[in-house]
């Protein structure tokens, strides 16, 4: 009897796995060439707004404010 229930539960697990695989296989896909082109376009379009690519001028750098002399 215990053999049966063990076999049943692994059957159930396998059935769930197959169901999940079927679900994932049915996902609507686009072509990789189109996807890659769109990722590239996104990067290029946003490159000028990317401070790590364009560099941060020290006057605007929040992590390193420009040093200034203070006369006390």
């Amino acid at each position, binding site marked *: 009897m215990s053999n049966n229930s063990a076999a049943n539960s692994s059957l159930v697990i396998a059935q769930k796995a197959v169901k*999940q695989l079927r*679900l*994932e296989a049915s*996902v609507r*896909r*686009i*072509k*990789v*060439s*189109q*996807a*890659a*082109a*769109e*990722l*590239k376009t*996104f*990067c*290029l*379009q*946003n*490159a000028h*707004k*990317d*401070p*790590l*690519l364009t560099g*941060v001028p020290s006057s605007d*750098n*929040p*992590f*390193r*404010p420009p040093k200034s002399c203070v006369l006390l």
Partner: protein
Amino acid sequence: MSGAAGGVASVGRVQLKLRKTLKGHLAKIYAMHWSADSRQMVSASQDGKLLVWDCFTGNKLVAVPLKSAWVMSVAFAPSGNLVASGGLDNICTVYNIKAASPKTLRELDAHTGYLSCCRFLSDSEIITASDKLKRPQTIMFTNHIGDCMSLALSPDMNTFISGACDSLAKLWDVRDGACKQTFSGHTSDINAIAFFPSGNAVITGSDDCSCKMYDLRSDQEVIGYQDTSLNAGVTSLALSSSGRLIFAGYDDFNCHIWDSLKGEKVGVLSGHDNRVSCTGVPDDGMGVCTGSWDSFLKLWN
């Protein structure tokens, strides 16, 4: 992807300077997370403390003492009012840091395994990753076979991606809890995962010493980032705001910078004396923060 990126100009050598070293933790730093204001940042160390930093001044704003020092993950809520942390205590604790002294708001303890990662959806909802992924109210995401090590929310907050020790990355719908897609290809544990800023691709970093970019809409890997000279596992990942640069922290004490389109190494952030355990880029993209087992956090731009 190499085909598509063939015509793209190279970024050249990316050299970022160390701007600040944040000292204050007394033991290994395991996790950090930027606040949505791109100014504050919370870090977690196994010295048993969370520290909230003002990264513009380098000052510590709040220190949250933890009940358990074995912390592995920390998250800042989008509102900036709350932080959450968790680790080997199997509990995700949420703290109110705007109170006069940090107050424990809630303890989410229905996890059967250690908490490897957590991310806030809002002040009232958090997704936690332990041996199973969970949203406390009703949904448990139970599809990974190995421990889930990392998770990332999509920019539109409708989906999230998880990476696990079974070397798979899975895409989940936040609302109905269904696993939509699974990505394979890595040969070892996935330690780090991040969304590309457009929300259409994800980058993963693994103990197999490589990173990969998977495109969600074509459901496959589009490019891999590996180098025969790099023999250390990837511990953490962050992307610059355009998605062009990938900052990957490695066990070799460095954070290497990759050109996401061309798959080439374009720079390195060295300075840590031990493994780089966490990296993060704030929402405004103005810099990168790396945290390490050497107990320091470094800000670069």
